[in-house]
């Protein structure tokens, strides 16, 4: 559309109230998701099976967890590049605590998640106290965390084979016999929590506000610093959780795995309709965004499209999906 619409949008978009707007937009994203899934179901008999269904959900878990956590950061107008390596570091920390130090599950898991929160805290302080742009602050953290993961693990994976019950965190089934991995349940629960924080709490409200107009929010007497620190800490906690989930699935903490995950997570958030300039977005949208990505990956694999073509198609579909959304959103 012409730039004049950019002008116009700033104001017209208002036609709908924030909440309602977001809700609507989720439906639209959902529509894209269903269209894509529908296509694959038609194209391959193997796509629409319960086994593959859980496979897709399972493959969404790690990116999904990271994406949900970072949604708050992005809504507040920030960004977090330290998700990927931060996750690896948390996984390694979990390994050090439970394998090397032999701490019990009940201690090690919370500790590793809290460690993620610590990473987030450092990011938050760098952004607020030192006033370093989020991109740089978290880029630096990305490098530091990646390095520390290697240092703490002597660049070798740490295996959880001897930590009873650890693997079940991801791969076990709550209802024995019913093949539905716990990791998926955990993601859903975590997403619900994040969703409530963002949509129902004062913190969430202020997160939108800061992302939309930081100065005005400050003038209204909101402690913007506190809000920002909080969202980075939350993102950090989710990073920690992701570290637990991935290492529990792989059965080991892989110090070198994680780089690059941050971009996928951010992509999921943006595809889910959260604006990188802040002030708008939702956790549900993010989940849908993450699902769109993994459905595409899975479907293309199943149709055994030559892999070099898969990225090409993935890219085009993302474009189309987002564009379709925008069109419908404008109609709305």
């Amino acid at each position, binding site marked *: 559309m*012409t*730039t*004049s*619409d950019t*002008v*116009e949008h*700033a*104001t*017209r*978009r*208002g*036609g*709908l*109230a*924030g*909440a309602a*707007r977001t809700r609507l937009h989720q439906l639209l994203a959902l529509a894209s998701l269903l269209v894509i899934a529908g296509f694959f179901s038609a194209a391959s008999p193997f796509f629409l099976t319960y086994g593959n269904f859980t496979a897709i959900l399972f493959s969404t878990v790690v990116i999904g967890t990271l994406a949900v956590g970072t949604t708050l950061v992005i809504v507040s107008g920030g960004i977090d590049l330290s998700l990927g390596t931060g996750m690896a570091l948390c996984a390694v920390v979990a390994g050090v605590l439970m394998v090397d130090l032999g701490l019990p599950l009940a201690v090690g898991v919370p500790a590793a998640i809290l460690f993620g929160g610590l990473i987030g805290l450092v990011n938050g302080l760098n952004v607020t106290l030192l006033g370093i742009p989020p991109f740089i602050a978290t880029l630096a953290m990305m490098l530091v965390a990646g390095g520390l993961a290697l240092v703490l693990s002597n660049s070798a994976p740490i295996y959880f084979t001897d930590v009873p019950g650890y693997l079940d965190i991801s791969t076990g089934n709550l209802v024995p016999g019913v093949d539905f991995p716990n990791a998926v349940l955990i993601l859903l629960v975590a997403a619900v929590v994040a969703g409530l924080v963002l949509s*129902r*709490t*004062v*913190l*969430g*409200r*202020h997160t*939108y*506000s800061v*992302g*939309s*107009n930081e*100065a*005005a*929010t*400050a*003038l*209204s*007497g*909101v*402690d913007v610093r506190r809000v920002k620190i909080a969202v980075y800490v939350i993102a950090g906690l989710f990073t920690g959780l992701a570290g637990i989930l991935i290492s529990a699935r792989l059965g080991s903490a892989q110090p070198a795995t994680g780089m690059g995950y941050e971009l996928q997570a951010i992509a999921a958030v943006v595809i889910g309709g959260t604006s990188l300039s802040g*002030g*708008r977005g939702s956790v549900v949208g993010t989940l849908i965004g993450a699902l769109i990505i993994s459905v595409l990956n899975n479907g293309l694999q199943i149709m055994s499209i030559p892999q070099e073509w898969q990225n090409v198609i993935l890219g085009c579909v993302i474009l189309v999906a987002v564009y379709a959304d925008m069109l419908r959103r404008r109609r709305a």
Partner: protein
Amino acid sequence: MGGTAHSSTDLFPPLLDVSEVTKSFPGVRALAGMRLDLRHGEVLALVGENGAGKSTLMRLLSGVDQPDTGRFLLDGREIRPSGPGHARSLGIGIIHQEFALVPDLTVAQNLFLGREPRRWRWFVDRRALDRRAAELVDELGLPLDPDAPVGALSVAHQQLVEIAKALSHRPRVLIMDEPTAALDADEVEALHALIRRFSGPNTGVIYISHRMDEIRRIADRITVIRDGRYVATRAVSTTSTDEVVSLMVGRAVPTSPAAPPARRRRPGPVVLSVRGLSTRELLRDVSFDLHRGEILGFAGLMGAGRTETARALVGADPVTGGTIAVRGRPVRIRNPAEAAALGVGYLSEDRKRLGLLLDHDVGTNITLSALASHFATAGVVRRRAARAAAQRYVRALGVRTPSLDRPVQHLSGGNQQKVVLARWLARDCDVLIVDEPTRGVDVGAKEEIHQLLEGLADEGTAVIVISSELSEVLRLADRVVVMSEGRVTGVLPAAEASQEAIMRYATLRPENTGTPPPEGPPANQHRAATAPQAEPEHGRRSRP
């Protein structure tokens, strides 16, 4: 002066006593030993030229900035507002000159931002919030939808939200920094009614405005500030507008006669003719003609669609119907760039959101529109020429700035307004549409801008003045287009244009009335005849 004001007050200390306040910004001394005292139950008007330091003082009182030196006494007790929240808890409420609203949040959410009613400590009690927002809006009788996102409101509506926000926590000292700048006559009346209702024996209002008539109506006393210094305080009853103005500027200046006969201008052929312009939202079949060297006023109540008309005209908003002819040639304008190329410029009513490059310097802001057409050869900027031109306009419009290199965000509101105006002067269009051109501009500067617009018209530029200040419209316009609910309900020649006549058309419910054909004798017969030969002569300047 103020000293006597002090001693002359009763034994009780004033509600608010401000003394010896200084505040400096790099390169500027915004306040130098400023003082004022606000008595219980009074409305104190604070007046001064653009850049005098009014807003700065209020930012100190409301805790946004901290003073370098100075003392604030509230009921004799010293207060040091450390932040906006703190000031609010001390009982100081403020309506900032530049909005402090969050566009992506709804009206209700904005009203209670930072003090949301809570549930279980962490959660927003949305039901309570909605209820209290609704109550507040009703109680104040404001035409606001609590669920509308603020970003979608017109400037005027946003101003109402600010007012509601400030009143909502029942401050003892209510500061209003040019609250009426965006309001039309009725709105101002409504606001004043609000203020009277608000003010009781234990409260006080500091009222900043550049509109003397208003001040005379609402204020009890007037404190004058000049160059960050206290000048004088007068009781409204015992002073005259002329005295106040001369105190403001430091010399005697006769305020201009209400409406000098603009008839002497001899409008030429039609430059712009609009027929049946409609938009999805609001506009229905808007038609009018604009003549060379004419000033066409647009009057109407808030939300009447004047801004929308302008935006649709220059292609900022999509149109759903209608035809536009520039210099007799039908044109399709898809965006403001094409409008500018045709010599049609639009100066937005919202200088902060839709006008200024806040973080850029004065020079850049002034030359933005004309850069390509006037200050570049083969796409390369002629920097000296651009700078010289910018310097010229700063002088011509008397923009108060230490240098061309100062970021506009640090200029006072009025001076910012002059900068955006200069931007279009530099582009010298055939048709210039100015939306609320003197919003937040002091009397002196306002007069300058008015003369400037008249000068443009005399040189043959066709000017459209959208204003919510009837006096302004009456002062400038050769003809007045009155709008109501997105339709043109009347086009009055200056002779027939009066407050009453305009208000009558402005409050007309357009449903039954069709749009009256554009009047103004020269219009119809001239258009066909004169447009052709008029065309080249007008085309000259604006061809890129």
